[in-house]
């Protein structure tokens, strides 16, 4: 029995409407309301009675849960599945599945800067036979067969700095940016080049590959603006440029999780903007990044995704979600190239359904096109 037999068929009437809503910010074709993407991952599995571990260990089950539960909350009609360390197994890490967490690294790490010279970029053909790419092929083949209307093949560069740092230990990496910057840069470059080849391998098979790339570890809690630009923004540009050259794209989702209090400015002239780009920032200091500022700074660059604090999604007070979503919607809903309401990062696995309802209710109340 396949996982598809555990789920009722998709509501195609819902899907048709959600598809029109999803298209609207990209083609200036206002539909019923602003779309909501709370970045659901393992919450979808939990909401269907499975575990966080199930979500990551059984990718086909996990991605079906995402497609299924999106109907309940009336979210984007597309499926996605990933964890934050793609390509790291290929570069030497062992990952361990946990009951309450995404897979974590158990090493071995490269503890000396000179060890970075032992790493090499894995080429596209090698990647096609290895773990991460095989996992992506499995889930997208599964979706193509069972939920084809939700298929968007996505390749994850994800957090180029953060995932690279895992290869040497995050503390070591941060230290190296001060003491061994060449080794730190070389490490990020090797990880990025491997991710580019992964995107190319996905595009080879499916004819396209949406790119998701972020700046998570590289944020103002840890790095200066200059360091964020050097290690992260420039490499994000490089990743998208190289991936485009190899046939991936044209959709790009830039995900800036963490505190981007002042470094948010360095991305503006470094990133590549395609006609289907979504730009998202999580926090400014301890607060969510204001959508009004996001619109002022990036509204002419791309479609924007505003943030509601993920902490509120597990806080037993739905109106706090509703009020913050309202504030963000009022600030960003008239962004010239479209706006989507989101969370500041992945919605927590144990997100409360009442909070999700509050998020979507705010979009219905304050995100209706023509009402502003």
């Amino acid at each position, binding site marked *: 029995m396949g996982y598809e037999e555990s789920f009722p068929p998709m509501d195609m009437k819902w899907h048709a409407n959600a598809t029109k809503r999803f*298209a609207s910010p*990209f*083609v*200036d*074709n206002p539909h019923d309301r602003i779309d909501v993407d709370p970045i659901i991952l393992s919450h979808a599995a939990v909401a269907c009675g499975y575990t966080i571990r199930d979500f990551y260990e059984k990718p086909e089950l996990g991605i079906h849960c995402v497609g299924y539960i999106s109907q309940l909350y009336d979210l984007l009609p597309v499926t996605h599945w990933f964890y934050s360390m793609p390509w790291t197994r290929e570069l030497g890490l062992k990952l361990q599945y946990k009951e309450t967490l995404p897979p974590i690294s158990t090493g071995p790490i490269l503890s000396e800067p000179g060890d970075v010279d032992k790493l090499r970029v894995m080429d596209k053909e090698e990647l096609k036979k290895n773990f991460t790419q095989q996992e992506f092929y499995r889930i997208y083949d599964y979706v193509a067969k069972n939920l084809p209307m939700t298929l968007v093949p996505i390749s994850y560069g994800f957090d180029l700095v953060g995932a690279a740092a895992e290869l040497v230990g995050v503390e070591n990496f941060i230290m190296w940016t001060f003491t061994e910057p060449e080794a730190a840069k070389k490490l990020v470059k090797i990880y990025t080049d491997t991710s580019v080849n992964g995107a190319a391998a996905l595009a080879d098979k499916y*004819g*396209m590959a949406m790119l998701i790339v972020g700046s998570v570890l590289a944020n103002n809690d840890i790095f200066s603006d200059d360091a964020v630009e050097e290690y992260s923004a420039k490499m994000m*540009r490089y990743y998208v*440029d190289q991936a*485009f*050259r190899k*046939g991936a*794209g*044209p*959709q790009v989702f830039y995900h800036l999780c963490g505190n981007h209090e002042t470094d948010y400015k360095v991305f503006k*002239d*470094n990133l*590549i*903007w*395609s*006609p*289907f*780009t979504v730009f998202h920032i999580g926090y400014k200091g301890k607060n969510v990044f204001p959508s009004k500022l996001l619109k002022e700074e990036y509204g*002419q*660059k*791309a479609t924007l995704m505003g943030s509601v604090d993920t902490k509120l999604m597990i806080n037993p007070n739905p109106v706090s979600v509703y009020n913050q979503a309202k504030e963000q919607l009022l600030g960003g809903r008239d962004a010239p*190239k479209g706006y989507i309401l989101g969370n500041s990062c992945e919605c927590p696995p144990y997100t409360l359904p009442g909070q999700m309802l509050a998020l979507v209710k705010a979009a219905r109340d304050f995100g209706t096109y023509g009402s502003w």
Partner: protein
Amino acid sequence: MDIKASDQVKETVAKRGLKVDDVMDVIKTAEGGNKKAVDKNTGKILAKKVINNVTVYADYNVEKGILKSHANVNSAYSHRMTLGKIVNATEPSNWTCAHCNAPAFLGTAEMTYMGVSRNGPAVVCPKCGDVWVEEYLATKTLAAAEGLFEKKKA
């Protein structure tokens, strides 16, 4: 100027739904007005012309003879998006704007399709405002984007 295209190039031109005569027109127009981008390392030339709402590009080299010059066409391609103003110029490129005799940059330009304007990557000349799209972007990224616009607009 004589313009030559190999059978292989003619086959590519046909596969991409273009006409050899249009490609020749692009080259003649570019050479006549000196409106083109030149790769400073290889001498390769990139020229474009909007023909029937499609921007047609010719990628070619010029060989200067004693009496006349010859253009050898390396490739040709097109996109349906309309190029607009420059949004930014981000990093130096190998390209030079022949008209301005100034460096062209990798950057971002406005692109409009089916009435929708968004940004897209391009080679840009900040001096005269001219914009070009390289072959890999036109035939992959923008071609896919045009398909998405058509699907999402439907």
